[in-house]
């Protein structure tokens, strides 16, 4: 019997009992799909972490958890971090050994993190606007691609920052931002946030404000309009009136991303900046290596578990093969009676199980791909 005939007969036998075939293939596919998906996800996670860490040589923050600081600074996740004075960024620049990009991550707008930074950030991360421009003046906002799609906003729309201190009248009220750009998608954490200039976030902090001519009533009382009570409007015509109260060198930052000019500059900066009071220097690649190590340990644990599941599945498959041979004894006997050799019968059975195995592999691959597709990007799990 030729392999073509063996495959044809095997395929007909499998199609004849297609329900049983599919069940068997699924039973084999499930224990394969899970570790497959976990490996793909964890590989993507570790690679995503490493790539982002490599693109950010040093991070400065206030003393505290270096993991929280790294996750906040690299993945733009708000975290309860002590503020860092803006003068630290100036101190980095003063060293002349690299660039410094400030990050302010305390507020949100419609649930999306509001990231206050400088235009340098977009150049360092390779972020290009798909529409409009980068934030160029006070009150400008640029949306990440995913944030724009989720919020249904585009260039020319307005977005109000979420009220951070609704019962504290001494603090600044929410600020209405102008959407001046939407970034092209990158597949990274920059897609899900709203960027603005760090000065704008200081407006939200109440450190920079403007004054208006109040509307007065008949008796000379100040009258607030409905818009006044909702949000502060950073009208471009009035931007000149905005001014800081106090020294902006003391204004708060969440972190400062440091981009040394070379490896030597990185070592020098790490040493010198580490001596500054109230400043913690973090090397993201080291933090990420710790996180990746944890992931790999968990993966090894899961692999061991999957090995046991695979062994159990193999035993069940052996049982199914044995029962199948017994149930089909008359059929196999008929094949031999007609003239099939015992080897041909074995080849037929092997062909059937080969096809089931191929189907199981295809289902496992599809299941793993579906799992990877349905689960969120691991780079954003942080």
């Amino acid at each position: 019997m030729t392999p073509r005939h063996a495959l044809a007969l095997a395929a007909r036998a499998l199609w004849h009992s297609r329900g049983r075939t599919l069940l068997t293939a699924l039973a084999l596919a499930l224990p394969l799909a899970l570790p497959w998906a976990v490996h793909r996800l964890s590989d993507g996670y570790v690679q995503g972490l490493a790539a982002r860490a490599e693109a950010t040589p040093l991070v400065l923050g206030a003393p505290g958890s270096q993991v929280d600081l790294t996750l906040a600074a690299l993945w733009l996740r708000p975290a309860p971090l002590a503020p860092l004075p803006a003068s630290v960024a100036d101190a980095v620049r003063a060293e002349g050994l690299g660039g410094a990009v400030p990050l302010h991550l305390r507020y949100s707008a419609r649930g999306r993190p509001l990231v206050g930074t400088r235009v340098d950030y977009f150049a360092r991360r390779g972020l290009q606007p798909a529409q409009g421009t980068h934030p160029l003046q006070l009150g400008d906002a640029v949306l990440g691609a995913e944030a724009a799609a989720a919020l249904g906003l585009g260039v020319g729309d307005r977005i109000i920052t979420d009220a951070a201190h609704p019962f504290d009248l001494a603090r600044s009220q929410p600020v209405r931002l102008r959407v001046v750009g939407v970034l092209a998608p990158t597949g990274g954490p920059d897609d899900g946030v709203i960027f603005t200039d760090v000065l704008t976030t200081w407006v939200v902090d109440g450190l920079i404000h403007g004054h208006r001519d109040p509307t007065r009533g008949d008796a000379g009382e100040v009258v607030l309009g409905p818009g006044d009570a909702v949000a502060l409007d950073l009208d471009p015509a009035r931007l000149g009136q905005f001014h800081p109260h106090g020294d902006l060198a003391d204004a708060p930052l969440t972190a400062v991303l440091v981009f040394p000019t070379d490896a030597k500059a990185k070592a020098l900066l790490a040493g010198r900046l580490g001596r500054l009071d109230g400043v913690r220097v973090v090397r993201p690649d080291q933090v990420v290596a710790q996180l990746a190590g944890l992931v790999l340990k968990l993966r090894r644990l899961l692999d061991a578990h999957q090995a046991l599941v695979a062994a159990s599945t193999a035993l069940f498959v052996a049982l199914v093969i044995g029962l199948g041979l017994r149930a089909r004894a008359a059929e196999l006997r008929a094949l031999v009676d007609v003239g099939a050799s015992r080897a041909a019968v074995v080849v037929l059975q092997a062909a059937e199980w080969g096809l089931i195995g191929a189907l199981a592999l295809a289902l496992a691959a599809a299941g793993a791909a579906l799992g990877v597709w349905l689960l969120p990007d691991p780079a954003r799990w942080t």
Partner: protein
Amino acid sequence: MAASTDPRALLEPIARVEGLRLTHGPGGWALECPDFAVAAGERVALAGPSGAGKTTLLRALAGLHPIAGGQAWAAGAPLKARGEAGRRRHRLRQVGVVFQRFGLLPHLDALENVLLPLRLGAGPLDGAARSRGRTLLAAVGLEAVAHRKPSALSVGEQQRVALCRALIHRPRLVLADEPTASLDPATAHRALDVLFAEVGAGGLLCVTHDPAQHARFDRVVTLRGAGALGVSR
């Protein structure tokens, strides 16, 4: 030992047994088979009471039952000297067997069951073979059910599919175990017509209990058990 009275069988036998002894397991029954032969072009009916050993003799000539003693030839080849693989190859290419229980594969339709020996290596499976398969099915009245699975066929239809399968590769010897037992007289007559026509210059040894069919055979060999043999005509 009784011998065939037909001189053709002595000249060029297609099947022959001499001193054949068949047993069934240690301590089981033993069949001392009387000598006889089937000549080329001869159609021989094998009759006898249940348990006389007709099916066992047919299976021995097909190479499916071990020979404990004596010798048997099928389609010109001695069976005892051949190993299991040799007997299987010989059966696949030179012998067609209609089994009492049909032995159809449940996942193949009627036509594919008929073509099964060709898939296993009895001959080329090409367009001509498929055409011959359809012709055989049509000859036994099954052209309309050629693509039905055995589970969708009546017992009589399944039996005719098994008959066509035994003939598809034009074997020199056809061994048929009650090939018309499940058929009505008219359909059985038609099936035997096809069987006789297809055997042609080969040989046919056919177990049948139907005395009405005996007249259509060249000769009737009757096994009476314990080695007794009767030959009519």
